[in-house]
């Protein structure tokens, strides 16, 4: 039985005799010496991770202006920050996007610019009060001008994360990157063998107060992160650190096409090896961390799982999906994760960083609940129009024009003889045909590639399809491709108007 105390390890750090290894090196050491031997030999194991952590941001204190203002709205380089706390504090979140530049620039970029020493423009507005009379304020500030810039990331360092793929026939752009059609690729995130929480899944040494590496500076674990779901192996951490000491080597803004901005955060947690149990836990390898590949083509909270997969397989470059070799890519950088684990190792070896015991352990066996929704989830059949006027494909353009005129329906689904959908024709198509002097059959002028919906699809999903395809109505089909209704963008706006 090996038994060490934090005190003993810190004395060794002080006198330079401490033995620190990275979590990658520890796999081999435990393999060779066993857990007990490794626990005797090794004092601290360092972990590291560097990846997209959307739930990140910084509390800024700007100091008081003359005359003073109680800020009610704050924008930094046109990105809104939350300021509903006292007078001159604001939280700039990584995923908030610019009012003017949209997804190209966001809170993450403001944070990176501040670390780079750039000035940012601060615009604030207020109602004005007796004690804070000022109503508008504009100035430029750099990091040095702020009293505090404290990074507080509500949810970082996921123990592990789902891998993503796409079963549908078109590319989807997600926070997991571009996912190519028909299982064209798989993306994943997380450091596997180096992942902080995977190396201490029972939270024996990681908890509130643990001193860590955050963004190139010393930081601390505040406690469990939001959505902490330790039961399923998806624990998270809330962390804090001083932005003024951070480096852009370890904090980087990112843009995910079609999703928005995010912040790449570098974090490393030291694990003091107090006994062989802890040594054993840090021996976890990529093969020992299993996650699921989910189908991000399905825009639902409950994305279907395609299969289980280990980080070892993900990192090999290919995974097997239905007998096909699918290329994988990591979204987090393993090379940087390794650099962080090594940097932390150097800090400790040089006596610049001491390990700590948590003042509070992280909760075990808890799970995050889905949202309670009081309004119910509207589906297409709730709001679609069921009386639909259609036309046969062999009808004349003249007939179509007449029906549109008589019924004031703008979209006329066109049917084959067996009543299945052949196409769609709009008033616009008819106008075009007339202008070209083409009075042929409906079949010759209709749009054949029709965007359709199913009755049991969620309205929010269908609304997005309408937007993406820039159409204003869709036929609703049953599984035999017969029309059972129509859903229009008007129906959808009415639904949302009722609710707001």
């Amino acid at each position, binding site marked *: 039985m090996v038994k060490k105390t934090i005190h003993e390890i810190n004395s060794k750090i002080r006198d330079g005799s401490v033995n620190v290894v990275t979590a990658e090196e520890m796999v081999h050491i435990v393999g060779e010496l066993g857990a007990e031997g490794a626990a005797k030999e090794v004092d601290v194991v360092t972990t590291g991770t560097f990846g997209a952590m959307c739930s990140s941001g910084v509390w800024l204190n700007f100091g008081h202006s003359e005359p003073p203002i109680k800020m009610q709205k704050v924008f930094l380089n046109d990105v809104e920050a939350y300021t509903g706390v006292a007078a001159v504090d604001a939280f700039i979140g990584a995923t908030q996007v610019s009012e003017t530049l949209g997804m190209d620039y966001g809170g993450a970029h403001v944070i990176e610019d501040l670390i780079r020493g750039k000035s940012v423009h601060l615009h604030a507005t207020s109602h004005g009060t007796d004690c804070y009379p000022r109503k508008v304020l504009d100035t430029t500030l750099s990091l040095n001008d702020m009293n505090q810039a404290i990074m507080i990331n509500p949810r970082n360092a996921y123990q592990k994360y789902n891998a993503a793929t796409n079963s549908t026939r078109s590319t989807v752009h997600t926070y997991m*990157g*571009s996912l190519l059609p028909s299982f064209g*690729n798989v993306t994943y995130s997380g450091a596997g063998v180096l992942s902080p929480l995977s190396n201490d899944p029972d939270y024996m040494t990681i908890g509130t107060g643990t001193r860590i590496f955050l963004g190139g500076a010393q930081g601390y674990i505040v406690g469990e992160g939001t959505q902490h779901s330790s039961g399923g192996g998806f624990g998270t951490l809330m962390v804090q650190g001083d932005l003024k000491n951070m480096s852009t080597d370890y904090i980087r803004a990112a843009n995910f096409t079609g999703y928005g901005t995010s912040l790449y955060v570098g974090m490393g947690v030291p694990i003091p090896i107090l006994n062989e149990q802890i040594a054993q836990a840090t021996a976890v390898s990529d093969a020992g961390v299993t996650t699921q590949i989910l189908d991000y083509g399905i825009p639902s909270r409950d994305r279907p799982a395609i299969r289980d997969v280990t980080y070892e397989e993900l990192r090999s470059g290919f995974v097997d999906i239905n007998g096909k070799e699918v*290329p*994988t*890519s990591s979204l987090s*950088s393993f090379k940087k994760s390794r650099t962080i684990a090594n940097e932390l190792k150097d800090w400790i070896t040089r006596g610049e960083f001491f390990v700590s015991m948590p003042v509070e352990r992280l909760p075990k066996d808890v799970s995050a609940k889905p949202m309670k929704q009081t309004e119910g989830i509207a589906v297409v059949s709730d709001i679609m129009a069921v009386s639909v006027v259609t036309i046969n494909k062999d009808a004349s353009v003249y007939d179509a024009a007449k029906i549109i005129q008589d019924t004031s329906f703008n979209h006329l689904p066109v049917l084959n003889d067996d009543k299945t959908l052949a196409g769609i024709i709009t008033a616009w198509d008819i106008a075009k045909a007339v202008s070209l002097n083409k009075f042929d059959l409906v079949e010759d002028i209709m749009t054949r590639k029709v965007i359709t919906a199913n009755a049991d699809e969620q309205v929010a999903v269908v609304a997005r399809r309408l937007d993406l395809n820039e159409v204003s109505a869709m036929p609703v089909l049953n599984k035999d491709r017969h029309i059972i209704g129509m859903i229009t963008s008007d129906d959808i706006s009415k639904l949302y108007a009722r609710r707001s």
Partner: protein
Amino acid sequence: MKIKISISSDILTKPIMAEAILETGVLLNISQAHFDRSHGEVIADVESGKFDVMCKALTNKGAVVTKLNIPIKWDENECVECGACVSVCPTKVFSIAEDFSLDVDDTKCIQCGTCVDMCPHNALSLGNNK
């Protein structure tokens, strides 16, 4: 040399590439082809010295030929070596080395632009067409 041959819908069904090859005796090594109702796009390799004759033959038959001579540009300062680009490139321009660095072999690039959208750090760009 890599070239892109764009074929509009009105000549889509004509065997213009076969004709151009027979006529000029110059070989085309096709690496990617994409056709739909509206147009066709073919990426092919052609010997540099023979580009002019081939280009002329294809252009005479109504195709538009573009030289793909500026491959993907990689900005190492912006790159964090995540590897996100690896799985989306159709021609395996990117790979992860033994030490987890990113290797870029831009000679294979056919300038499809997929990786430009994928890179979270704006480290990849195309000079001439995207």
